[in-house]
């Protein structure tokens, strides 16, 4: 009846136990608040069943930020442990728990934070930038989100029930095989990734078709904003890479559940094949995350320089080239596997080549600022920090791409410093820039600039303090995933510095949380007086009121150049004619939510071998799909009168303020 689920699964070490209790309390508090304010109906109608990409985007970012808290807590635990656990002292985490923590940290940050932030921003921005009212497949989009969310929820469930994987964030076999990891940890890892991965594939298809098919009249491919281009490239990568992940996870699942021999040490299996396959997905995944960030900076820099982006065409080709190259470099993650020197040399060379298009981009941004009117607002500050960190990280990356050097630095903290430079200095700082930049579009008020700046300086200095010493530690021989070391190594002071750096970053994060709250509280003071264009923007999203009405554009714009909104403001293009029309939008549906929650149930059942529950939820999922497939395509129609009224309300709101 209960499969492998026993009471033991609910017993944890003190630190984890307190996290679980905190989680339960916040859950209860949220339910109580919703009931007290009678907001259940609102939650259901406006959010849970929505197919509006703007709402879905906000939910993505909400879930991702929640998971960010968890991933950050994991990181702090590791750094605290490493600052304490030297010589006689053994810190506060057991080795086993430490392994769970670093596995969970990587998995959470990549799959549920970075991916969530990227998909969130794309949901918010892409339809607005291409002049569309919706995405191509609104239901698939909602389904993709709910699968992502249920993967994230499964991570939280693993915190409370049972243990997480101890096999690292990519679960290399044979360690992740049933022989060496007989527990439920790796199964949790498999199912949370499998569920979220299917969601990502679906979202990838949705956005690719949206960008290819739903651009407004006149917006040819070479007139798309660079953010849309970067999303297009990133979605191509999703479509090519995620099926490999799905298949690889299926094979690992079969090894573990049915005793197959794909990656086992015995039976003729080949563990190195897993590592090849997982990186054939994993390397493109890195670019799936960073390409949209390049897109964000390509929007931020021209806006805050009041100048057209320098080298648009070269920017596009650089994106395309990176997309292509990212598929032929995966082997640089394991030069030490023992492939022949020729193979290693090829992959090393290809890796170095990627630096060229990336360098083109950096120079394009710098030349955009040249002779521009540069405003040093906080999105721009994030850009400066990005250039600094991304250049350092990029150069150490080129260093690592040389196989002989890699043999020295493989799995050392040098590598950790390199890729955190890319992921924090690149993806996270880029997201912060985009978040600050686009926040007023969806809220109507700007974030408090002073607090933004405090947070920025905390993040930047904290980051440098937390990761620059890791380069040194890597050279001194410190490997990754250490939970204890001897005092004679001389690493202790550096690890303490690293811990302090992490705490300073925590301050940055805390200031941002407070800033959100503070700006919301004083939103009257921070109100965007322009009614939708606080930064003197260039692209279409700034031409609609903030927050945008549900249909985005009352009149579908027609475009004949890059930066169409800028052209209108400069008098180089005619403003759109006010001629409203009936608008068709898809109706809300709860089926995406149902399938997401059933997938969570299915994943949980599979982890604990509750086969009856797994079968039941699978049948329920199929039933939901059949119902959806048989439903009539239902649209809601917004009449001309309603459109007029909503547009009037927007302009009236701006006049009052």
């Amino acid at each position: 009846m209960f499969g492998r689920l026993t009471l033991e699964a609910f017993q944890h070490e003190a630190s984890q136990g307190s996290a679980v209790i905190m989680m339960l309390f916040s859950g209860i508090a949220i339910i109580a608040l919703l009931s007290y304010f009678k907001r259940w109906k609102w939650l259901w109608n406006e959010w849970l069943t929505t197919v509006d990409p703007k709402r879905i985007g906000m939910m993505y970012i909400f879930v991702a930020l929640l998971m960010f808290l968890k991933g950050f807590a994991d990181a702090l635990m590791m750094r605290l442990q490493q600052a304490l656990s030297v010589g006689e002292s053994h810190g506060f985490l057991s080795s086993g728990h430490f392994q769970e923590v670093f596995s969970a940290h990587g998995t959470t940050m990549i799959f549920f934070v970075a991916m969530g932030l990227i998909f969130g921003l794309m949901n918010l921005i892409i339809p607005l930038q291409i002049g569309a009212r919706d995405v191509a497949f609104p239901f698939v989009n909602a389904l993709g989100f709910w699968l992502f969310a249920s993967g994230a929820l499964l991570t939280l469930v693993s915190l409370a029930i049972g243990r997480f994987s101890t096999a690292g964030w990519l679960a290399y076999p044979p360690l992740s095989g049933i022989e060496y990891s007989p527990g439920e940890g790796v199964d949790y890892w498999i199912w949370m990734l499998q569920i979220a991965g299917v969601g990502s594939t679906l979202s990838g298809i949705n956005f690719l078709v949206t960008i290819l098919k739903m651009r407004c009249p006149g917006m040819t491919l070479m007139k798309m904003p660079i953010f849309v281009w970067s999303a297009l490239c990133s979605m191509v990568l999703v479509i090519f890479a995620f099926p490999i992940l799905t298949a690889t996870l299926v094979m690992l699942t079969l090894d573990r559940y049915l005793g197959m021999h794909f990656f086992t040490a015995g039976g003729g299996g080949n563990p190195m094949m897993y590592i090849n396959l997982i990186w054939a997905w994993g390397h493109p995944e890195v670019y799936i995350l960073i390409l949209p960030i390049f897109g964000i900076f390509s929007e931020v820099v021209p806006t805050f320089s009041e100048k057209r982006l320098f080298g648009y065409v070269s920017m596009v080709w650089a994106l395309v080239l990176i997309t292509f190259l990212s598929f032929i470099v995966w082997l640089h993650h394991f030069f030490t596997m023992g492939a022949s020197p020729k193979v290693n040399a090829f992959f090393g060379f290809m890796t170095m080549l990627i630096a060229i298009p990336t360098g083109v981009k950096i120079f394009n941004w710098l030349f955009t600022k040249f002779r521009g009117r540069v405003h040093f607002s906080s999105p721009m500050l994030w850009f400066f920090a990005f250039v600094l960190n991304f250049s350092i990280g990029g150069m150490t990356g080129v260093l690592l791409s040389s196989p002989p050097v890699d043999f020295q630095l493989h799995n050392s903290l040098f590598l950790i410093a390199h890729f955190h430079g890319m992921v924090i200095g690149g993806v996270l700082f880029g997201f912060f820039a985009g978040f600050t930049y686009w926040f007023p579009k969806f809220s109507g008020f700007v974030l408090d600039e002073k607090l933004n700046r405090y947070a920025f300086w905390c993040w930047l200095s904290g980051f440098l303090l937390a990761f620059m010493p890791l380069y040194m530690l890597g050279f001194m021989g410190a490997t990754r995933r250490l939970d204890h070391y001897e005092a004679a190594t001389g690493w202790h002071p550096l690890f303490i510095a690293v811990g302090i750096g992490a705490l300073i970053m925590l301050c940055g994060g805390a200031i941002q949380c407070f800033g959100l709250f503070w700006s919301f509280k004083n939103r009257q003071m921070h109100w965007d007086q322009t009614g939708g264009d606080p930064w003197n923007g260039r692209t279409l999203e700034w031409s609609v009121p903030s927050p945008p009405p549900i249909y985005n554009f009352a009149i579908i714009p027609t475009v004949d150049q890059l930066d169409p909104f800028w052209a209108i403001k400069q008098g180089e293009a005619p403003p759109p004619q006010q001629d409203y029309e009936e608008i068709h939008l898809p109706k809300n549906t709860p089926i995406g939510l149902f399938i997401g929650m059933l997938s969570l149930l299915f994943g949980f059942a599979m982890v604990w071998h509750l086969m009856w529950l797994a079968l039941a939820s699978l049948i329920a999922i199929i039933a939901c799909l059949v119902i959806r497939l048989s439903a009539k395509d239902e649209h809601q129609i917004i009449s001309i009168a309603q459109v007029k009224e909503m547009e009037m309300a927007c302009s009236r709101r701006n006049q009052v303020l």
Partner: protein
Amino acid sequence: MSQSLTLHHTRELHPDTRVPDPHQETFPKTLLGFWMYLMTDCLLFGTLFATYAVLQHQTFGAPSSRELLSLSTAFSETMILLFSSVTCGFAMLSAQQNKKKGVMAWLAFSFLLGISFVLIEGREFRDLVQEGNSWTKSAFLSSFFTLVGTHGLHVSVGLLWMGVVMAQVYWVGITIETFRRLAVFSLFWHFLDLVWIFIFTFVYLMGVM
């Protein structure tokens, strides 16, 4: 299917086209989206094929493909699946001519052929397991069962889907919506045929020869 016919259907039946809005063209979007999905599925199979290529000689003392696989069974499976593709194509032709009975009949044919394919494959798997050559024996057998089984699973899902489409055509008739779903389904069905041809070539023909 010819473009003019789908356009014809769109003009006749699709409610969205009453609105002069380019954003409501569901048919071409769905078609492109489904092609994208098929490409992801293709890569999934590509990964399994690559794995099979790496592991096919790792028999670990268990029998190899030459000793285990029967060409005649695989050939009959191929023929059955190819024929089901043909009948599915005829169903599409009937749908374009708005002949509901024709659609139902041809789909029923495809269904029978599809189900016999699954049954034959199931029998093949059962025989292998009963002779003691299950997927736990060697890496080769693991990858064989996974590659061929994944295709079989796709066919089974396709059968379920075909049932749903048939029910819709039966109850609703041929409207632009059922036509679109039928078109998408037939793409899926032909795609499975294509994958099977690769399986037949790489696993059976090259494995036995």
